[in-house]
């Protein structure tokens, strides 16, 4: 239609068009890659932890005197906690999921460190541990209370039975059920898998093996132990207060240090991911805003300098819609060049990011969305100036000022 004259006109004074196209290209490249990083972070943060995130809280304590009697004292406290009205379950645990801190151990399918190996992030809990976590068993059963033992911090004693996640089971026994199978510690101690947890995330969210979790029927050593409590739905805050008060009233040789919710701890660990995502979202918003304003500014300016031309076109017979269409077409052509260049730049940038920083490669459909998005931005920015251009009176052509 009008493409040829617009093209030749652009070719004669290309600077403005090049600048707009360049802005669009850069904006597209940055936006697409940033969006990709954001989505990855959000996915990371949004992973199902496999536990009852909203209702779990932890009470950290420290033995303060000779009154403290290890397992006896801890069981006393547990009984108290389990007796509280809003508490669904409670146990002693050695570490907190999604906290950045915990313990891991390797086990093998054969003695003497032979066969397949799995590194598992283990949590030492008693028979209420599974319930307190709120994790779901896919196969098998929970621990028997009789198998729960207190093992000294420095001891190399191993539990007789354990629960593992599907991830661990798949690593050690691919293609078959791991239920009932025996695995071996590094010291060739046999350990039986009595239950398989569907899915649970461990202590280190950024680890590849974060889903490799095991539960050991062990009352952990008091230097690392804390009480884990699962409140009934909606009663967490209340129970946190009540638990602290109730435990503080009992003087049995230990001091309550603090009470924190699982949600808080996880959020703190994910704070960096969230901060990164927030930063990028702000940058993208500013970027698109600046680009849109810039395109708008240039388009408006172009219209204001070309009023004489617009008036002349109207005088020789262009209708208002012809003028609007002219500006939209001109803008669309510039935007398209920018989008195409931007896609190339986005791919280059994505490739560089993935190789230098070991981030996964950019998915192509992001480019499609990015391109569509910037087309819209470019067109939207032209809306008002194009309308203004259409409003230029044909009488402008006869003015001599």
């Amino acid at each position, binding site marked *: 239609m009008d493409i040829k004259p617009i093209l030749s006109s652009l070719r004669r004074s290309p600077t403005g068009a090049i600048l707009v196209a360049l802005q669009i290209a850069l904006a597209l490249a940055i936006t697409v890659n940033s969006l990709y990083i954001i989505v990855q972070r959000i996915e990371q943060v949004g992973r199902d932890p496999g536990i009852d995130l909203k209702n779990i809280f932890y009470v950290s304590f420290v033995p303060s005197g000779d009154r403290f009697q290890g397992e006896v004292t801890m069981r006393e406290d547990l009984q108290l906690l389990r007796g509280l009205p809003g508490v669904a379950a409670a146990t002693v645990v050695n570490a907190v999921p999604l906290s950045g801190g915990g313990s891991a151990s390797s086990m093998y399918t054969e003695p003497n460190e032979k066969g397949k190996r799995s590194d598992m992030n283990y949590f030492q809990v008693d028979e209420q541990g599974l319930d307190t976590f709120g994790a779901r068993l896919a196969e098998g059963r929970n621990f028997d209370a009789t198998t729960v033992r207190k093992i000294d911090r420095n001891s190399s004693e191993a539990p007789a039975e354990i629960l593992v996640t599907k991830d661990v089971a798949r690593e050690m026994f691919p293609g078959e059920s791991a239920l009932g199978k025996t695995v071996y510690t590094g010291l060739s101690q046999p350990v039986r898998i009595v239950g398989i947890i569907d899915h649970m995330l461990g202590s280190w969210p950024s680890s590849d093996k974060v889903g490799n979790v095991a539960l050991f029927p062990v009352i952990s050593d008091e230097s690392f132990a804390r009480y884990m409590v699962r409140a009934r739905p909606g009663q967490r805050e209340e129970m946190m207060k009540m638990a602290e008060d109730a435990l503080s009233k009992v003087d049995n040789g230990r001091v309550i240090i603090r009470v924190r919710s699982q949600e808080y701890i996880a959020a703190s660990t994910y704070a960096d991911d969230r901060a990164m995502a927030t930063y990028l979202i702000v940058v993208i918003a500013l970027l698109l805003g600046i*680009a849109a304003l810039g395109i708008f500014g240039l388009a408006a300016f172009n219209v204001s300098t070309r009023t004489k031309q617009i008036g002349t076109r109207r005088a020789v017979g262009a209708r208002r819609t012809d003028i609007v269409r002219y500006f939209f077409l001109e803008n669309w052509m510039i935007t398209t060049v920018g989008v195409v260049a931007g896609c190339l730049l986005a791919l280059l940038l994505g490739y560089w990011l993935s190789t230098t920083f070991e981030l996964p490669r950019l998915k192509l459909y992001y480019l499609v969305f990015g391109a569509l998005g910037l087309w819209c931005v470019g067109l939207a920015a032209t809306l008002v100036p194009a309308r203004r251009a259409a409003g230029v009176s044909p009488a402008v052509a006869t003015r001599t000022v």
Partner: protein
Amino acid sequence: MFAYDLRLALLSLRRHPGLSALMVLAVALGIAVCAITFTVYHAMATNPIPHKSRQLYAVTLDTWSAERPYNDKKPDDPPDLLTHRDATALYASGAAPRSVVMYKSGALLLPERQGVKPFIATLRVTTHEFFPMFDVPFTYGGGWEAAADQGPQPVVVLSHETNDKVFGGEDSVGRTIRLGKVEYRVVGVLKPWAPSPKFFDLTNGAFEDPEDAYIPYGWGRALEMPVYGNTNCWKSEAGDSYTDFLNSECIWQEMWAELPTAADRDKYQAYIDNYARSQKAAGRMPRPLNNRLYDVGQWLDRNEVVQRDNRVLIGIALLFLGVCLVNVVGLLLAKFLNAAPLTGLRRALGASRRDVIRQHLTEVLLVGLAGGLLGLLLAIAGLGGIRAIYGSDFNRSSYERLTQIDPVVVVVALVLSLAAGAIAGLYPSWRIGRTAPAVYLKSQ
């Protein structure tokens, strides 16, 4: 002449307030994003102990398993911690002019003061060299002597914050404090001290607070204190006592050596290599010889203190600035060419090409400067926001530490904004200066 250029520039900016505001805003946003990103990056990349960073070395030995390296992703790196046996052996040898072994632990602190809740104090269990080696500043008193490590003597050095909390900030030297089961006598109180990054112990976060108190090395063993840092064991070893733990291949102790000259360094390297060979002869250390000494800079690099993320963010910030600048170039070009008749008139009245270019560049630099100042204000607000949201919310001192206003960044930002203005304005100013005056004096 400059004053005149300035006046013309201001007039020109005022003539198109909307356009000028848009340009200043574009520069400001670009500078703000860069300033925020640079601040965090710079805080992460600072040398925490510049005058000594090439004399302090982290000592590492490759005591790991024959089957696989310590870090699959970086198979050439030896482990970052030492076994108890190796640490004490190297320390006792005296092969380095000065060295320190230490690790992180914790104990219940029962304060005497009313209204202060008991809390778990993080402790650094260390030999006495820690304080002189790392130039730790004291408000009151000082560290302890070698004899205290052996005893061990019940002495303690408090951090500034702990002293505030427990003793209200007074000179507490000589007073006692109860940590766990033992009463310690305060021998020193530190000035507020938080090296950033916390290079000597990166295991629990490079920018978190240093420990609440410091006690002599011997206490760790005497009280079988739990290790709050990392403990890593490649070998499954039977055992059930603390002594078994001490004798095991588990790595958990940190060691630093002060090696002022290259000769000291080489001598020490030879020493630890020889030590490793003798251990190998005894059947330990199955992996090939790979004992490394890292100076502070190398140590920070090895541990990737400046995270990958931050490098990506710097790149994105600069690209964003680029977009803002392209924006500004376009607007400048448009504005200058529109004012061409005026410029043509001036040329007709005697302004040279250089006058025209200079005048327009002045205007652009003004935009750059205004944008830079506004950008800095926005950056300060942004950093404050980050601190408010993440610092207080999650008690992460790292966010506090990394978002402090950095004078270097302020200077860089201002220079950058002027440079940006100059770059953006170069082409438009040249363009407008280039055309013959007559062209613009014709009526169409």
